[in-house]
């Protein structure tokens, strides 16, 4: 078989196939729920209910999407320039680390000043973490897929070391966690009582800004040029290495914002399990969005919705929690396939 591009896919195709992907996921969910002894017909409703069926559910979905928007943007920016940043997880932790280093009393500043300072400092730290692999790539040609991936483990161990050492909360009764942020360092909640915080708004703003950067600025243009053909870009006078470094700063900074937002908006302190793989899921989000920053928002909401919805369903239906991850993975694979088929037709031969 081979794929043949479709010049102008019909609306039916563009909407129908993703709908089919969701239907396929739902069907799989029903089959597996039935296998686990639950009522298959109820599962669907329970997923929707868990993702958006109440104020709590909807806000929690937005909440779960927040770090995914940041890491998704980080990956989208990097992948555009063909910088394979698999290390958003490490950059996220770097941002979180700096947030607690400076936000637990070291900087006695008023909130409107402190928050931007923390965000920028976190971004700088994330950028720094990605700069290492990028310099190894531009200087020595070391494959960044591997270095960024390995740095995730190193960073996690480093955070663990600090949390069990100098950063350990003296009031924490020994559990490896940092001291809480001072109130001035906290991102306020959007809805009182529930934990959706201004980090979500920040994520939306970031998505719009990155869209503008990619489509309206010379930097975005250069990043795409470098990603599509570095040799031609270099020939045309574009400083390829500098663009890669700028990309790294932007990408690492965005991933670090996820850490900043989770700590300052949600947790209030740093633990080793701050991120259940947001850095990796960011890759999925970015690719689902086809690297479009605004698409990242939609993709993050989709992923977060499936995640919270299926998780909530697994509890309500009394099936093993792992069904949620399974359905998320299936939804993702079905969806990328559906999106490919909106633009390509399968031909025999």
């Amino acid at each position, binding site marked *: 078989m*081979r*794929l043949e591009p479709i010049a102008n896919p019909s609306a039916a195709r563009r909407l129908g196939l993703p709908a089919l992907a969701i239907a396929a996921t739902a069907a799989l969910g029903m089959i597996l729920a039935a296998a686990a002894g639950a009522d298959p017909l109820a599962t669907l409703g329970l997923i929707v209910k868990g993702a958006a069926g109440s104020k709590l559910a909807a806000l929690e979905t937005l909440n779960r999407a927040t770090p995914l928007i940041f890491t998704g943007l980080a990956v989208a920016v990097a992948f555009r320039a063909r910088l394979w940043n698999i290390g958003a997880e490490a950059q996220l932790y770097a941002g979180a680390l700096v947030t607690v280093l400076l936000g637990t009393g070291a900087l006695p500043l008023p909130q409107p000043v402190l928050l931007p300072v923390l965000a920028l400092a976190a971004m700088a730290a994330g950028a720094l973490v990605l700069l290492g692999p990028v310099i190894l790539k531009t200087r020595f040609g*070391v494959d960044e897929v*591997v270095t960024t991936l390995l740095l995730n*483990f190193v960073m996690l161990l480093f955070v663990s070391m600090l949390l*069990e050492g100098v950063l350990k909360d003296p009031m924490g009764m020994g559990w490896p966690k940092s001291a809480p942020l001072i109130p001035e360092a906290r991102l306020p909640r959007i809805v009182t009582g529930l934990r959706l915080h201004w980090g979500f708004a920040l994520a939306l703003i970031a998505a719009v800004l990155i869209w503008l950067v990619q489509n309206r600025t010379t930097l975005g243009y250069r990043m795409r040029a470098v990603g599509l053909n570095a040799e031609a870009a270099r020939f045309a006078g574009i400083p390829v290495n500098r663009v890669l470094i700028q990309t790294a700063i932007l990408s690492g900074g965005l991933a670090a914002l996820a850490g900043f937002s989770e700590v300052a908006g949600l947790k209030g302190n740093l633990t080793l399990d701050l991120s259940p793989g947001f850095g990796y899921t960011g890759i999925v989000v970015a*690719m689902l969005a086809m690297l479009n920053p605004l698409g990242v928002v939609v993709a993050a909401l989709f992923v977060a919705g499936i995640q919270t919805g299926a998780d909530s369903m697994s509890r309500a239906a009394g099936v093993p929690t792992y069904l949620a991850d399974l359905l998320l*993975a299936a939804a993702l694979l079905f969806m*990328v396939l559906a999106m490919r088929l909106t633009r390509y037709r399968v031909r025999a031969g």
Partner: protein
Amino acid sequence: MSAIWDILITTSFWVAMIRIASPLIFATLGELICERAGVLNLGIEGIMVAGAFTGWFTVYLGGDLWLGVLVAMLTGMAFGVIHATLTVPFGLSQHVVGLGVTMLASASAYFTYRLALPQVTDPPRIVPFQPWPVPGLSEIPLIGPALFQQTPLTYLAYGAAILVALVLYRTPMGLAVRAAGENPQAVAAQGLSVTAVRMGAVIVGSGLMGIGGAFLTLSAFSSFFFEMVNGRGWICIALVVFGAWNAGKAVLGAILFAAFDALQIRLQQTPLGAQVPYQVFLMLPYVLSIAALVAMSRRASVPAALMTPFNRGER
């Protein structure tokens, strides 16, 4: 650094090194085959989890140990089929499919495990492969016990390494795989199907990853645990790069990485270990891997078409 020297002269260090390396050898070879054909397989971590589970579960249900190995391999191949179908003929992003397969495979294993064994707080055990000293060879000092006092699965790892190297460099099939990762047009122009070659490589490679996972439950340990693969798959991706996409060097890399691991475990027991945070020791293999990558960096050896999908009739 006499502490290191003291460790290096113990037989048990060398035995541990090969034991730790064994699962990595399988999975690294698997990843290597995929990448030589042009497909980055980030599904490795989850495929190892699935192999670890099904291999163990087969034996738990009463199957023979070797049947467990076979089932683990078939499990790996099944996920390989998913990965290959999506990345090769459909040409989807190898990053997203790889991570998706990792999620799918591990979640499937966990889900099935929990369905089958809902109420275990103490995971059931099987009788795993036992060390099987090779008569004669295992008596050679130092090397003998290290190489030849292992379980049969480790010997299978040696066999896999030799077989993969032979196939890659000495057979038409291996030639086709290597060419598919370098320039798929060259493969197509010689009348071969790039799709078939790449899919075959991904499926076979994933089968090896499944066995790598099963090593953990059938040889290194005797029960299945959530999260027990614990990043070993990601390490193997680094090892392929470290080995410059060359089977022999990648296996050596796996052994070297295992040596670092065996060493750091032992260093923790020395007086030094009491002073330095344990995380520093755990970091050691990763940091040294990065350092080794820098030392070995040679861009030229990357398969040129790695991560580039091939679609006939489109340029």
